[in-house]
C-alpha cells in the first residue's frame, strides 16, 4: 500500500505523541454554571403548576414529581457536561492544531494552520463573566465550522488567533 514512503513514515512526527494541554480551568465552572442556570429555569417553569394547583391534593402530589425527576436529570446531565469539558484538550504545534474531545466517543481533530481561511473569536455573556472566549476555525469548502474551541481564556484566545493569522498570512 505505501510506495516509497516507508522511511518517511517512521520518522514522521506523530500526532498521538504530542502532550495535550487542558483548557482553562474556569471553563469547567462556566459549563457547570450554564447547566445549572438552564436546568434551574426549566425546573422553575415546571414548578409553576405545582404552586397554582391547590386542589385536588392528588394531582398536586403527581405534579411535584416532574421537578423532582428534572432535578435528577439535571444532576446527571450537569455531571456529564462537566466531565466532557474536563476531557477536552488541545495542543498547538508549529504547523497545526490538535484538539481532542469526547468522553466515550473520542474525536481527534487535526487542523493544519496553512489551511485555515479565517478565524472567529466570540464570547457570550456568561463566558465574559468568566473571562473566556471561543475560537472558530474555518477552512475552504463547506460552510460549516471546522473546529470550535470553547473554554480558552480571552487573553489566550486572542494570542492564539493572532499567532495563527500571522502564520497563515505567510
Amino acid at each position, binding site marked *: *500500500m505505501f510506495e516509497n514512503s516507508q522511511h*518517511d513514515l517512521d520518522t514522521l512526527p506523530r*500526532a498521538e505523541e504530542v502532550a495535550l494541554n487542558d483548557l482553562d480551568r474556569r471553563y469547567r465552572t462556566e459549563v457547570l454554571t450554564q447547566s445549572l442556570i438552564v436546568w434551574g429555569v426549566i425546573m422553575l417553569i415546571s414548578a409553576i403548576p405545582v404552586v397554582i394547583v391547590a386542589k385536588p391534593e392528588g394531582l398536586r402530589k403527581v405534579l411535584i414529581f416532574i421537578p423532582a425527576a428534572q432535578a435528577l436529570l439535571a444532576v446527571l446531565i450537569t455531571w456529564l457536561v462537566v466531565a466532557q469539558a474536563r476531557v477536552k484538550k488541545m495542543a498547538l504545534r508549529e504547523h497545526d492544531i490538535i484538539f481532542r474531545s469526547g468522553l466515550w466517543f473520542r474525536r481527534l481533530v487535526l487542523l493544519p494552520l496553512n489551511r485555515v481561511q479565517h478565524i472567529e473569536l466570540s464570547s457570550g455573556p456568561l463566558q465574559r463573566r468568566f473571562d473566556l472566549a471561543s475560537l472558530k476555525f474555518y477552512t475552504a*469548502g463547506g460552510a*460549516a465550522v*471546522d473546529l470550535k474551541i470553547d473554554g480558552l481564556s480571552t487573553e489566550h484566545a486572542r494570542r492564539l488567533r493572532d499567532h495563527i493569522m500571522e502564520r497563515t498570512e505567510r
Partner: protein
Amino acid sequence: MSPAWRRTSPVAVVFYLARAARFAVTDGIAMFAPAAAWLATASGPKKIWAIGWLVAMAVFGLIWAVLSYLRFRYRVDAKQVLVRRGVLTREQLNIDFDRVQDVSIDQPFYVRPFGLSVLTLDTAGSVKSEVALAGIRNERALELRQDVLRRARPAVEAEDAGPAAVPARQQVLTRDLPDIVRYGLTANGLLWVAVLFGVLGGSFGDEAWSATGRWVIERLQLGNLFDTGTAATKGAIAAGLLLGIPLLLALFSVIGAIWRYANYRLEVDEDTWYRSSGLISRQEQTLKRTKVQAALWRQNAIARLLGRINLQLRLVSAGVEVQASGVPGTVPAFLVPALTPAELFPISARFVPAPDHGAPELSGINRRYHLRRTLMIAMIPITCASIGLSFVLGPWVVLLAAAVLAVLVPLIRLRGKRFGYGVTGTTGVLRSGLIGSLTTVFELRKVQRVDLEQSPGQRRRGLATLSIHLASHSVTVPYIPLHDAQRFADLALWRIESSAEPWF
C-alpha cells in the same frame, strides 16, 4: 483610463427567460404541480382564472428577464471583471481573474444563430458569485477566456505567452454515442433501485397491488379513465405505471446525457483542460489542473455491469456540502463519462498523480464493521420491533423481518468489503460502495482537515474511523486499525505542511 461599462446583447433576455423557466421546472415543480392539476380539473370560470394566473406568471417572467437584461452591465479591466446586476437589489461583483475556478462557454441554440455565446465564470466563493455574461460575441468570449486563463496562470508563464501565442490544444479523448448512452444509464444509481422495485413489485400482483392501484388512481384522479375495470385490472395498471415510470426516467436520463454530452471532446493545453460537448447547444467547460481537489471514480452497479467508470473532477465546493449525486446550484463537477479502466487510469493520473496502469492496491477495513453494523442497524432493532409487532399483528411479522434481515445482512457485508484506503506516492485513495464503488483520489497536500474518531468499542480493539475533509467534499472510512489511521493522518499533515505549492 478605465474601460466603459458594457451591456450584453438583447438576446440575453431569452437567456434569462430560459433560466427562469428552468428554475420553475427544476426547483418550482412542487409549487406548480398543484396549480397545473387544478388547471386540468377546473372548468368554466375557474379555468379562466387558472389560465389568467399562468399568463400572469409568464408576463411576470418576461418583465423580470427584460429588467435583468437592462440592469446587467459589465466591465473588464487588466485584472478583473466587474459586474453590476440585480432587478430588486442591485449588486456589484468584482471577480479577480486569479480567483476564477472555472470558465465555460456555452452556445445555447437560441443564441447560436446570432454568433453569440454565454460565458460563465465560477469563483471559489458562494453560488451567488457565479457570473454569466449572456449574449456576448463569440470572439469576445474566446478572447476574454484567454485573458482570464492567462492571468490566472502563475506570472512566470505569462512572459512567454505573448498575444500571438496560439493555444496548442491536444485532443485527449472523444466519446461516441454508445459511450454517452452508457453514461446516461449509469449516471443515476437511484433510478435503478426504482426500476428494481418496479420489477419486484410487478411479480407480486395480488391484493396489495390492487390496493396500491386504487390509491394511485385516486391520487391521480384517473378514476374516470378506468371506470369499467375491476380492482385487479386497476392493480395491473398501477403495477404497469410503477414499472413504466422508472423506465421512462431511465430513458430521460439517457436523453439528458445525449443532450449534454453528445460529441464529447476532451482537450488539453499545458495544464488547462477543455471539455466541449452538447447535441444542439454546444458547451465548453474549462478547468485548470491545479484547481482540481479530487478525482472521483464512480462506478455504480450498472456501470460495473457495463465495465465503465465515470470520472468526476471536483473543485472547491461553493460553501454547500456536496452530496455524492452533486446538488444542483453548486459548481458543476468536470465530468469525463463512461471510461473503460484502460482509459480511466492514464487520464485520472494527469489530474491527480497516481499509477497510470491500474487501480492502486487498497487495504480493507476491519471485520468488526460487519458485526457492529449488523447488530446496530439490522439485528437488534428489527428483531425487537418484529417480536413486539407480532403480538399485535400476528406471527407473519417475524417471517417478514427474517426476510428483510436475509437481504440486509449480506448488503452490510458487501458494503464493509468495499471500504478501502491507501497511499500511493503523494496521493491518498479512499474507497466506499455497495455493489459498485466510489473511489476518491486526492493529493494529500490538498487535504483541509483530518478527524480521527473512536467509539468505546473501537478503542478496545485499537480501531478508528478516519475522516478526510477536502475543499470539495469529505470522505470517511470506518473501522481501520488505529495505527494505520494515525499514520495516514501524520502523512497527510506532513504533505500539507511541507508543501509550498498553493492548493488551489
